């Protein structure tokens, strides 16, 4: 009896086709665009690495990247500690635990563009509760014109939308700590801070790594909310990488540079995520956490 044949390929084929259509072909199309130039009529000319070179020397891209890094750093610096703080103060069991969980999950259920719209109206000086109140209090607040007002609104909006994710993950991490740890710490006369530093933080390390990675990747790709809220303005104040990319690709139809830009964007996210991951898992080993 022949025990070897090639039939197994048929089992793998559906996956190969699916991955090809959903990932490989679109990605290769982008790669294709990034090394060619077109003047319409489906005529393409080889451009080599010219677009990449262009983009690397584009002040516009460097500015957008700078804004993006500042934005993601601020987001992480606020959302991670705040999420942990919220998680630590949520009730551990009973009816209120469920109520809190549902309330915390609510912002996560709202679509991005709706969040943008909510804050766009909320922040308006004429009809928005927030804008009107601030204006009435004498604060010079107008997110469509003021640089700081626009940034503050985008950041607060993101914190409002996504802190829940960090809080829920941290909460799950905290729930997995057996009560005996807290009892043992109590018997040792450990302070609240020691309990956090030496029990809760090491035990939450795994979920926090995931939370930080998710929040980094997501905030680095942010598009819809600031697009709906400020459209990238005032001026270019809140034009983050994705917004700039869409302007270039669809607004100006500069497909070549936009494709080169996308690939570099993708690489930047991958590299930074990888660095984050390596640093955090190494910390893990040093600290002996789980």
């Amino acid at each position, binding site marked *: 009896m022949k025990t070897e044949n090639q039939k197994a390929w048929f089992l793998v084929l559906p996956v190969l086709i699916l991955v090809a259509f959903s990932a490989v072909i679109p990605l290769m199309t982008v790669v294709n665009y990034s090394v060619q130039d077109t003047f319409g009529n489906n005529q393409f000319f080889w451009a080599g690495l010219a677009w990449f070179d262009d983009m690397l020397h584009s002040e516009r891209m460097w500015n957008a990247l700078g804004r993006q890094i500042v934005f993601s750093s601020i987001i992480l610096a606020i959302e991670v500690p705040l999420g942990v703080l919220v998680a630590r103060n949520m009730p551990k069991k009973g009816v209120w635990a469920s109520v809190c969980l549902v309330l915390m999950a609510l912002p996560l259920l709202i679509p991005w563009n709706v969040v943008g719209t909510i804050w766009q109206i909320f922040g308006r000086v004429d009809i928005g509760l927030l804008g009107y109140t601030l204006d009435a209090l004498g604060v010079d607040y107008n997110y469509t014109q003021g640089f700081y007002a626009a940034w503050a609104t985008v950041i607060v909006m993101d914190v409002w939308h996504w802190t829940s994710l960090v809080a829920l993950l941290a909460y799950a991490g905290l729930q997995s700590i*057996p009560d*005996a*740890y807290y*009892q*043992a710490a*109590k*018997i*040792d*006369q*450990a302070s609240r801070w020691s309990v956090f530093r*030496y*029990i809760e*933080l*090491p*035990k939450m390390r795994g979920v926090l790594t995931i939370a930080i990675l998710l929040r980094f990747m997501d905030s680095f790709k942010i598009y819809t909310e600031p697009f709906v809220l400020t459209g990238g303005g005032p001026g270019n104040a809140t034009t983050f990488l994705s917004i700039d990319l869409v302007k270039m690709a669809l607004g100006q139809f500069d497909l070549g540079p936009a494709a080169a830009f996308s690939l570099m964007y993708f690489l930047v996210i991958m590299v930074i995520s990888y660095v984050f991951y390596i640093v955090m898992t190494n910390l893990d080993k040093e*600290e*002996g*956490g*789980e």
Partner: protein
Amino acid sequence: MTLTLKDVSKVVGGRTHVYPTDLTLEKGTMNVLLGPTNAGKTTLMRLMAGLDVPTSGQVLWQGEDVTGQRVQDRKVAMVYQQFINYPSMSVYDNIASPLRLMGLDKATIDTRVRETAELMQLTPQIERRPLELSGGQQQRCALARALVKNAGLVLLDEPLANLDYKLREELRAEIPRIFEKSGSIFVYATTEPEEALLLGGNCATLWQGRVTQFGPTPSVYRQPADATTARVFSDPPMNFIEIHKTGDRIRFGTGDDVAAGARWQDLDDGTYTAGFRPNHMTLEGADGALNFDTTLVVTEITGSETFVHVDHQGTRWVGLVHGVRDLDAGRPLRVHIDPRHVYVFGTDGRLVQPAPYAEAA
């Protein structure tokens, strides 16, 4: 140093976890709390430690009322079934942590940590972190953290339950040695009668929130005060059968009628419950043994011994017999019990007559 529980009880949400209990633990004693899961062992320990406040009653430490005192202010150490250590600290720092919180100077801490590590055989692992250690070493580290404090009261809540057989045996053999050196009051909760006997000391048997008996472990085992204690302190549980005495005859269950003889002569006429331990049931008859016709339900072979589950007139008995007995379920089986191994309890459960073998020992 003495720890006294005076009429201490604990009720949580209308359910009584511990009924009013009196217990006095003396300095330098090993006290085993023996009982099945949910018997109230952990609750009792939490009350002793001060992690819970009793619903009623008083906790006295050296005669002083410490009932409302926080656990932080008492001299207590506790070890749990889970291996509880600070995950990010080395073994050294873990052992040192309670001393640092007590504010001792560096040199004293160092001496005591190294002494305790040596006692717990952790010296080679002292720079490692708990999660790099085996389960047994992790629990040694937790024990070391409890011992280093020199707390007057050391509570061990099923500390060996999560260890595999070999490590459990190893650590169990060491515990009495460690305990002797410390001079503290040790309280050790376990579900296993065998463990209680190996640890010795005193034993309090618990059943459904009540301490059924408290005394030296071997004598609680040999002369249980009542049927409940006998059931708790026997694994598998003690087997029971109703007996009726009239004149010089004793009737077992609904059938077998034997002469009361010298063994049961002094009993008043009436109904009693007879009990015998599984290891006293034999499949080989002997002179003077009581014989019972039963139906075999199932046999469980555990290496060199066999658990024989039989049905005797509707009551399930378990016997532990030597050797591998591969018998067919459902077949009739004649089992034998030496009258010297039979305890007699009153219908209220109180011990009326201990088994003679136990009295002699």
